[in-house]
């Protein structure tokens, strides 16, 4: 009577098997038929194959604590409801006798139930911390680390932990360490947002580090950057804000801009979104005042040059995307290599010139992207540890 064919449990099972890599070829056919049946199936299929989405949804999965609390809430009521129903039936037969019985049972019930509920609650609170404790151990190895001047290293994760840690540290060092600096380092494939003491917000891209004072003292606000970061600088006309990279000084009063300065790359790039900044090349001292919509390029071999920026491309990393527009594979792979912390080898140098256009998610590992690229082109990838070899298909065959 309760069977309902409209819920397709078999498909759920097959998708689960597919994701765990346990599916047979016959089952795959069934799955493919379902997938092509209508667009909603296809959409669901795509979502469930998107690791980012899955991970996000797994976070929404109810916890043991939540379901234990629900059970204990239900439990008391179930007992009571059962008693009441039983009483109702008896009552239909002998209503008069019932009154006495009802009082007796209710009395018993009220006297007894709180004890049961309390015991359940006590058990839950004991289970709770243990469960979370186990998860916390797994979580402690984060991709973002905060290093204090005293050499302490603290793993940073969610915003909450982060601000808590920073507050704790700031309190600890307050007063006697006026010029204390923190350094935040992101691992590959990790980004991090931090708010500095003046209210400036910094988004740090992967494999980057930002060194900044716990409190800005003196007449200038100075931070040191390796890698890439987007700055939303709090306005303070009396205290200019300076970003110092390997090649440039970038001075601002209050504005939004993106700085890219990875050690392995030949160019520093400062892209301005609002306000104004002065970019200075360290080695020659040349200064350039940038206007919004433009970016300044600083390299070791050439003086500052300025060009129009493509905002969506500059900000792609903040949106967790790679955006490529007619990009040669050589440069595209360079970008992937920086993000994932890999080294790229072109076995066929001609492959460097192949061009790609597309918007791709920054998947947690590079494999998905390599699959996508090789599907749409004539190149093959061989991955071994942190090394990638690229060959063109014709040459290999």
């Amino acid at each position, binding site marked *: *009577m*309760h*069977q*309902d064919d*409209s*819920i*397709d*449990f078999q*498909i*759920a*099972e097959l*998708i*689960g098997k597919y*994701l*765990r*890599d*346990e599916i047979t070829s016959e089952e795959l056919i069934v799955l493919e038929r379902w997938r092509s049946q209508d667009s*909603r199936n296809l*959409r*669901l299929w795509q*979502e*469930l194959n998107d*690791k*980012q989405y*899955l*991970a996000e*949804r*797994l*976070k*929404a*999965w*109810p916890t043991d604590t*939540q*379901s234990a609390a*629900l*059970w204990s*809430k*239900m439990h008391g*009521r*179930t007992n009571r*409801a*059962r008693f009441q129903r039983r009483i109702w039936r008896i009552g239909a037969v002998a209503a008069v006798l019932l009154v006495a019985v009802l009082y007796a049972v209710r009395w018993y019930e009220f006297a007894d139930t709180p004890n049961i509920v309390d015991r359940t609650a006590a058990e839950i609170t004991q289970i709770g911390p243990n469960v979370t404790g*186990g*998860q916390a*151990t*797994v*979580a402690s*190895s984060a*991709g973002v680390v905060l290093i204090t001047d005293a050499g302490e290293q603290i793993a940073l994760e969610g915003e909450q932990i982060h601000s808590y840690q920073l507050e704790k540290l700031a309190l600890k060092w307050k007063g006697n360490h006026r010029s204390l600096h923190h350094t935040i380092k992101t*691992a*590959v*494939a990790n980004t991090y947002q931090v708010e500095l003491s003046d209210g400036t917000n910094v988004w740090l891209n992967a494999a980057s580090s930002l060194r900044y004072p716990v409190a800005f003292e003196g007449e200038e606000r100075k931070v040191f950057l390796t890698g890439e970061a987007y700055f939303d600088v709090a306005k303070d006309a009396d205290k200019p804000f300076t970003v110092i990279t390997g090649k440039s000084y970038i001075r601002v009063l209050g504005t939004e801009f993106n700085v890219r300065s990875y050690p392995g790359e030949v160019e520093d790039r400062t892209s301005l979104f609002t306000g104004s900044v002065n970019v200075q090349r360290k080695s020659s001292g040349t200064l350039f005042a940038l206007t919004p919509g433009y970016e300044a390029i600083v390299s070791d071999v050439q003086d500052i040059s300025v060009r129009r920026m493509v905002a969506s491309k500059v900000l792609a990393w903040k949106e967790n995307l790679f955006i490529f527009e007619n990009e040669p594979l050589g440069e595209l792979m360079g970008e992937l290599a920086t993000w*994932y*912390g*890999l080294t790229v080898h072109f076995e066929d140098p001609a492959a460097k010139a192949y061009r790609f256009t597309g918007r791709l998610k920054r998947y*947690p*590992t590079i494999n998905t992207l390599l699959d996508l690229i090789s599907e749409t082109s004539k190149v093959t990838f061989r991955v071994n*540890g*942190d090394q990638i070899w690229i060959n063109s298909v014709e040459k290999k065959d």
Partner: protein
Amino acid sequence: MDDSQLVLQFKAGNEAAYKALFDRFNKRLLYVAEGIVYDRNLAEDIVQEVFWKLWDRRVHFNEVQSIRAFLYLSVKNACRNHYKHEKVIEKYRARQGEPIEDDVVLSKIIEAEVMESLYHAIEKLPTGCREVVHLRYFEGMSIQEVAEQLNISVNTVKTQKMRALRSLRLQLRTLSVGMALLIELLLMVK
């Protein structure tokens, strides 16, 4: 207790069997309900009521599959009833911009079933294994580096542990693709 016994016990009014069914299904139902009404408290109320209803009708069931279908369909109906509540409508519009349609709910149910199976697989991973693959996949280290890293971090630990870690390194090489996906998810979640 196998499934047919479980249902028999449940029909007979055994509370342990009822609890077992609750444990098996409550998370999926909460997940579906919350995914539709976007309100945790409301979702909990819905699931609670659905389980009461299940208890009331326990004599009608002969297998776990029909219990599962009953639970999901009851959640679906309860969500639709609650949906009439204005607050929920507002929340729903703000997030999705489309009314609750049957196939939206059905998609959600399939999703819940898939999540359940993934979640179980992840929970089964040994913790030591997680540690190694964390360095491998999350920190982007090579197997060599992972081994080195672990050597450094366990310097003070007894040789026994070192051996255990070495065997984990071997384990890492034989990870299947499916396993790798689970680990990736695990790392993204926590």
